[in-house]
């Protein structure tokens, strides 16, 4: 569980197991909901109220985001990594060719992504501070802001000072998944490298908050540990972040493990039904929060979840450095993708269900 919580994991799990249908209905009828309501809505019995959850979530989604969906695309600038995350193909033990793109190569990628009609970029990199000093990142951010209105980063943790430098250079959002909130499992899955330090990882996102970054993206990797316990931690983490960084918004992502080349298997797989229940619960309890859904999920699931939960979706993702400018995907990717539709196709499919895709929803001027 997230440290510093008053409740133990056992207490939380016992509570969730004891939730009744009436408690779920009570949570759904309320106007203002809290942590306990989230526990009610992720409970096994809440499945019986899934239809009602869907319509309440959809109403909130519409109220806060209207009938629009924001598009973003990830740009992998490096697959070099000194960590050994068991579930990731960038794992140092995976002896495939690695590379860090040069600034010129990154610009070529940016141009290719921009040509797809995308205006929001997520910069992704493995952890390799040697090939990516802060000065280089700063330069990349400044350069990317020439092309994209909105820029997020999903890179290795930095100091508050490091985040501040990137924020000043133009970073709007920071995504940093805890992977698992279970400390014991976390240490098993991250046997070596700087990422091994569980508490430092927890703390990193608040350093981003201190630096003033507008969007703080959190999540856990679905499939590592019991999703209900993890959801309780995620919700508590979000509440804590909101209270301490009132000028930043919390963004939830729900990355579900997809196969990796090293053959790592999900330890506690999460089904599509469970993923939907989890997202609905978060939408209902955090009605105004940002929620993303990546191309790890199928086209069908993504289109459905846009109607009730997700306001931000990725499009045409390539998970290899250099994957956009160079159409031949020969390098090591981070994981497998399920939705490979073109941006144009995504736009058409979403239009058919009554949603407008929005590329530009931010401005460089701000």
């Amino acid at each position, binding site marked *: 569980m997230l440290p510093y919580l008053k409740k133990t994991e056992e207490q939380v799990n016992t509570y969730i197991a004891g939730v009744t249908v009436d408690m779920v209905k009570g949570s759904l009828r309320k106007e203002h909901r809290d942590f306990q309501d989230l526990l009610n809505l992720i409970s096994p019995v809440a499945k019986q109220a899934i239809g009602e959850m869907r319509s309440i979530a959809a109403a909130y989604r*519409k*109220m*806060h*985001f*209207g*009938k*629009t969906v924001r598009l973003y695309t990830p740009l992998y600038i490096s697959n070099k990594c000194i960590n050994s995350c068991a579930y990731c193909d960038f794992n140092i033990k995976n002896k495939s060719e690695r590379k860090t793109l040069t600034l010129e190569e990154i610009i070529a990628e940016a141009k290719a992504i921009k040509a797809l*009609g995308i*205006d929001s970029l997520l910069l992704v990199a493995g952890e390799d501070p040697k090939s990516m000093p802060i000065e280089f990142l700063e330069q990349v951010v400044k350069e990317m802001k020439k092309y994209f*209105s909105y820029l997020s980063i999903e890179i290795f943790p930095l100091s508050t000072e490091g985040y501040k430098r990137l924020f000043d250079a133009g970073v709007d959002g920071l995504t940093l998944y805890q992977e698992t909130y279970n400390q014991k499992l976390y240490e098993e899955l991250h046997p070596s490298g700087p990422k091994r330090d569980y508490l430092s990882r927890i703390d990193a996102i608040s350093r981003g908050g201190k630096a003033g970054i*507008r969007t703080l993206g959190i999540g856990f990797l679905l499939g590592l540990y019991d999703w209900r316990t993890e959801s309780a931690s995620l919700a508590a983490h979000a509440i804590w972040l*909101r209270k301490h960084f*009132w*000028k*930043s*918004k919390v963004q939830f992502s729900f990355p579900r493990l997809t196969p990796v080349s090293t053959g790592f298997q999900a330890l506690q797989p999460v089904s599509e039904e469970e993923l939907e229940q989890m997202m609905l619960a978060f939408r209902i309890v955090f009605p*105004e929060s940002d929620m993303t859904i990546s191309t790890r999920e199928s086209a069908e699931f993504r289109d459905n979840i846009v109607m009730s939960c997700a306001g931000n979706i990725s499009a045409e993702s390539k998970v290899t450095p250099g994957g956009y400018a160079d159409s031949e995907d020969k390098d090591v990717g981070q994981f497998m993708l399920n939705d490979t539709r073109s941006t144009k196709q995504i736009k058409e499919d979403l*239009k058919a269900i*009554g*949603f*407008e895709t*929005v*590329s*530009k*929803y*931010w*401005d460089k*001027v*701000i």
Partner: protein
Amino acid sequence: MKALKIADTEFKSRLFLGTGKFSSREAMKNALIASETELVTVALTRVDFDNKEDDILSAIDTSKVKIMLNTSGARDAEEAIRIAEFGRAAGNNWIKLEIHPDPTYLLPDPIETLKAAEILVKKGFIVLPYINADPVLAKRLEDVGVHTVMPLGAPIGSNQGLQTEAMLRIIIEQSNIPVIVDAGIGLPSHAAAAIELGADAVLVNTAIAAADDPVLMAKAFAMAVRSAEMGIQAGPASASLTASSTSPQNTFNDLF
């Protein structure tokens, strides 16, 4: 009712619209037409000067509708001023000043708003600040020369109606500049209530954009605002706590 004039522009319609959250540009365009609005607000964050295909401005008929950019996204005065300057460079001198650092309820920051308003007025902008329903702040803004005040009825996008009614009453009573109730208006009846309360206009977005039929809802709002206006012009009989017969006794007394 006194004609509605902001800066030097007179408005026949007291219904202003926001342009976010629509399912398509066509839907927005048709709703704007149905609402008969003459003033809409557009977030600079949604304006794309480089990509005409994605540009929200191209769907607005500027011969009928005035555009005021808004500073949504700004967390402080400095950012808001930057947005306003950028908008003016692109030809928009009207600015809806909204500074909401809190992303949860999007409540406006009174201190930064006052700071920015003072500077923007000096720079020659037509400034319409979005504020909490705070009567003292409304007067402070009037003192620095803003052109309207836009107090909220309820948190933006919440469709809760005039939750701040008691404070709105005081703002309206004290104001020498137009008062536009902005945010929280969820139903045509809320808009009518705001006009009946004495507001000069209302600004509506989510209630129309997120409706199942935005065009029909836009029409409904237009009619509600018109009917409230007509009601005021008609001179309503005063309300009383006791019942009074529609054919009072003394009428009959006169007959005999």
